[in-house]
């Protein structure tokens, strides 16, 4: 299987008023299809920055990123948009549903952007929503759903277009630990059953335990990369 994500020597500097923050200092990372990987590390270590760069939302200061065979460095703004729409699913920390859309409408949003016909959309979204355990709640608005249910809708929205890669930035940070567990169960199941590749950041120890691969970031550098906590020094 070809490499899905290949990030090489990524640096990212944020500069303001002459003070430069080196958010990433030469990160290299590869991800194979079907992986279920978690990025861990203290707050400010560069997890979100790296996810944004891999997801084509942000550009690295130096280094190259390839996703699904495309060199992101070479893509313009609108091509990056298309890449995100067609190849990547996003799950954000919280509040990432559109409040005026129902669960179904949120879940089918990307399909709509892709121009998938209504009937097909409906079929797929009904199925995915059932898969994330929201059967019967399709027509609820986000405010009528709990935090966990909202994240389930977000997961459904991310996986419904069957992307090559789903990026999730601290998906369980805003829910209680029990809900976090069940969200993780859901993502694992999607990974196992459907082969969806996940790369997410977290500092939830429960999540770390269940990830198949852990990548430790520290001060903008990869400080460890292995199958479990025990593989990683310094945690």
């Amino acid at each position, binding site marked *: 299987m070809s490499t899905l994500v290949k990030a090489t020597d990524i640096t990212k500097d944020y500069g303001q008023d002459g003070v430069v923050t080196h958010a990433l200092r030469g990160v290299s990372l590869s991800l194979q299809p079907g992986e279920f990987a978690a990025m861990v590390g203290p707050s400010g270590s560069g997890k979100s920055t790296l996810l*944004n760069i891999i*997801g084509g*939302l*942000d550009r690295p200061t130096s280094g190259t990123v390839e996703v699904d065979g495309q060199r992101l460095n070479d893509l313009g703004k*609108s091509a990056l*948009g*298309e*890449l*995100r*729409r*067609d190849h990547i699913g*996003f799950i*954000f920390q919280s*509040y*990432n549903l*559109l*409040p*005026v*859309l129902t669960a179904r*409408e949120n879940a*089918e*949003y*990307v399909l*709509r*952007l892709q121009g998938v016909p209504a009937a097909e959309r409906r079929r797929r979204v009904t199925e995915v929503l059932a898969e994330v355990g929201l059967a019967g709640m399709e027509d609820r608005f986000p405010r009528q759903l709990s935090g966990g249910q909202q994240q389930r809708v977000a997961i459904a*929205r991310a996986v419904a277009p069957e992307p090559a890669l789903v990026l999730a930035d601290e998906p369980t940070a805003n829910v209680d630990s029990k809900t976090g567990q069940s969200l993780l169960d859901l993502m694992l199941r999607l990974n196992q059953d459907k082969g969806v590749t996940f790369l997410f950041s977290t500092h939830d120890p429960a999540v770390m335990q269940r990830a198949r691969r852990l990548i430790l970031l520290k001060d903008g550098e990869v400080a460890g990369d292995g199958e479990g906590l025990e593989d990683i020094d310094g945690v």
Partner: protein
Amino acid sequence: MNTLRVAWRNLWRNRRRTLVTLAAVSVCTLILTVIYCLMEGLMVGAVANTTNLSLGEVQVYAKGYRHDRSFYKALKDPGAILAAASAAGVGAAPRSYSFGLAALGAKSSGARLWGIDPAAERAAFDLYRHVAQGRFLGDRPEKAVVLGYKLAKSLEARVGSTLVVVVQAADGSLGNDLFKVVGILKSCGAAIDRNAALVHRADFAELLVSGGRIHEVALNSRGRMPLEKLRALAAAAAPGQEVTTWRVIMPAASDMLNVWDSMMWLFGLVFILAAALGLMNTMLMATFERIREFGIIRALGATTWRILADVTGEAMILSLLGTGLGALLGLAVSQYLVVHGLDMSSLAGSYSVGGLTFDPVWRATLSLRSFLEPVLLMFGVCLLASIYPAILAARLDPVRAINRV
């Protein structure tokens, strides 16, 4: 889940703000349409009062006649002009003019003789209805004269008086005859009041040995034909002769109407801008409140066009509702003012400015120009006003937008 339905839901997220904006746009549209219809009524009325009386919308003269009013500069083929007018269903009246002297007893005064065709005047113009005393000229020549009221006053003439009219006839002789005063006109504007003496064209021809010379054909469609079209029609029927319009004959009045027109647009602009700025403010606020949402849909792959369409879609609904509601109300109020008008008689009777006469009851006119144009303009400018917020939303950087809470 089409764009407009989503836009509609977004609009009602802040119900009060949307209602206030709607009200502002509606009220501006209402005021705008009513004032435009009223002003259009004023102008149309003033023009009609002026042209329908006797001036006509379009006039035909022999080349040079307007310059020196020479009796000998007569229209070449007035019949062709009259025929063309009648074929087009436009009223037309042939007239002959001459200056002369009118005397009654010891009084005498210069007068402008109008040799008219009373039947044609009745059909095309309203002058015959402006008789204060007595009656208008009959269809057959009867050596009768109808006088402008100031001329009648200076001659101390009354209905039944016999005037001596003296002219320089076409053959150089001193044409003179007696005419019986059958009518005295109401005030019809300075030109007629001061010296008009209307006689039948046959009597005129006999007095002046004029051989039926016609100096003017005045055409009047009563607003049914656009001025330019009527002018072209007359020009085609009168090659080589001078065709004018009331705007040429009454440049002051024409200029005044043009100035009013510009002022109305300026005035309209103020209302349109007020409404549009209100709407822009609403859209800006709505955009700022939803920066995070725009960031998310950007991240999900929405194009800038998508976001532009989302924001302008909302503005379109707001504008459409606002102008639509305002237009409906404006239509109702304007229609009322078309039928009933504003009674200005307590302020002034019929009054004149710059050669235009205004009615004591101020009526509105509903037309494409007075109603639809301001409404469409309002709608269009409101839509335009939403482009700025839309562009702001479309240019957001997704990462920063999402991180802003």
